[in-house]
């Protein structure tokens, strides 16, 4: 396999560089998820409120993020925030903000769906014990909603991980961007390297996302049973 090109992966610091790029993708995904899920849980609870105004506002928020492709979202934050608000934060921070808001919109819908699908009688028997609205949320509705929403939340996480592949488009040094640089640097000496570099990245995404999807599938089967 001397000339198959696989050696590109291990030449010099290439492998370490790829792992470094992977780390960038991972922390952006994790941070966006943490912020997005926290915000989304809050928005989801608000979306079950009786106020029409609150409902409409959060619905529009959700639909905006549903309609705009994530690539476009990244560009909106990357080009418009710095210019309109005079912010000069690094692209990775812009990406976290964009992803976190997107996650919060998607998650708010998941939380809302789960909350309204907790059976009405569960809510009533909580009330019958004298629980107030807040206690009802904390002890009865949220824990039950959590179980219902877990598979969808894991699926959302796998989408966020896949979406980090778009980071290269706003010049974040993620795993794909590093990969592309390595491919270009070795194009003359090792034209087959491209196969291995992109193959490895393909595989890296797969080994992160596949177990998560399997887990989500198992959980949702159990919820149905």
């Amino acid at each position: 396999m001397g000339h198959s090109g696989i050696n590109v992966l291990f030449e010099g610091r290439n492998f370490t560089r790829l792992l470094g790029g992977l780390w960038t993708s991972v922390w952006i995904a994790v941070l966006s998820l943490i912020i997005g899920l926290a915000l989304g849980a809050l928005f989801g609870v608000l979306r079950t409120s009786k106020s029409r105004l609150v409902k409409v506002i959060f619905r529009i928020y959700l639909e905006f993020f549903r309609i705009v492709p994530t690539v476009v979202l990244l560009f909106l934050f990357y080009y418009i925030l710095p210019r309109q608000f005079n912010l000069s934060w690094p692209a990775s921070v812009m990406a976290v903000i964009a992803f976190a808001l997107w996650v919060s919109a998607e998650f708010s819908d998941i939380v809302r769906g789960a909350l309204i699908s907790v059976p009405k009688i569960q809510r009533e028997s909580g009330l019958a014990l004298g629980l107030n609205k807040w206690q009802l949320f904390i002890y009865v509705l949220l824990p039950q909603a959590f179980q219902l929403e877990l598979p969808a939340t894991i699926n959302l996480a796998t989408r966020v991980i896949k979406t980090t592949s778009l980071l290269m488009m706003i010049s974040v040094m993620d795993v794909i961007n590093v990969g592309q640089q390595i491919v270009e640097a070795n194009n003359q000496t090792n034209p087959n390297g491209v196969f291995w570099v992109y193959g490895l990245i393909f595989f890296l995404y797969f080994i992160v996302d596949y177990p998560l999807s399997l887990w989500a599938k198992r959980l949702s089967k159990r919820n149905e049973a």
Partner: protein
Amino acid sequence: MSWAIIQQSLPQFVKGFQVTVWMSFVGIIGAMVVGLCCSLIQYFHVPVIDKIVSAYVELARNTPLLIQLFFLYYAFPVIGLKMSAITCGLIGLIFLGGAYMAEAFTGGFDGISKNQIESGEAIGMSKWQLARYVVFPQGFALSVPAIAANIIFLIKETSIFSVIAIPELTNTALDLIGLYYHSNEYLFVLVIAYAIILIPLSLLLTWLERRVRYGTFGD
């Protein structure tokens, strides 16, 4: 925000719009055909092929479209398969979408209640008759919401075609920004263009979902 700039850019955006629309259309139809074939193979447990189908579905669903496109566009020529960007884009979208559509159809077939299947069996239906008269008609109806969600998802994914320089909407906006720097205007037009495609479509799909749900089974 300047209207003049927007106006000047419109002809280019119209071209990009056309590319996005026709590629989405072909890609989605292709994805539905691939998805349906895959889910039928899984439903009838065709030996060996069903394992290959499962592997394909998992691979395609758990990797990003962007890296799938890079592979097709940059890595395949190394093994002697050179294709145009447009061909790569369509193959990528069908590869990704086929897996999602397969899951949608399979989900529908799996969603039919056991009682329905058992009452079919009770009147002596064969597996094929059961599929033909009970599982498929009800399963298609059940899979409509997931298919609708996939259609919207796949149209949005075409924005990623811009990485291999297919002149669709997003790529058009990026090119214009690169040339003239009017990012506010071009991004505004870009968002509106996606809204023009997706809002009516999502309303149409919601309407269709309702019709299927209430129309077919009357509850």
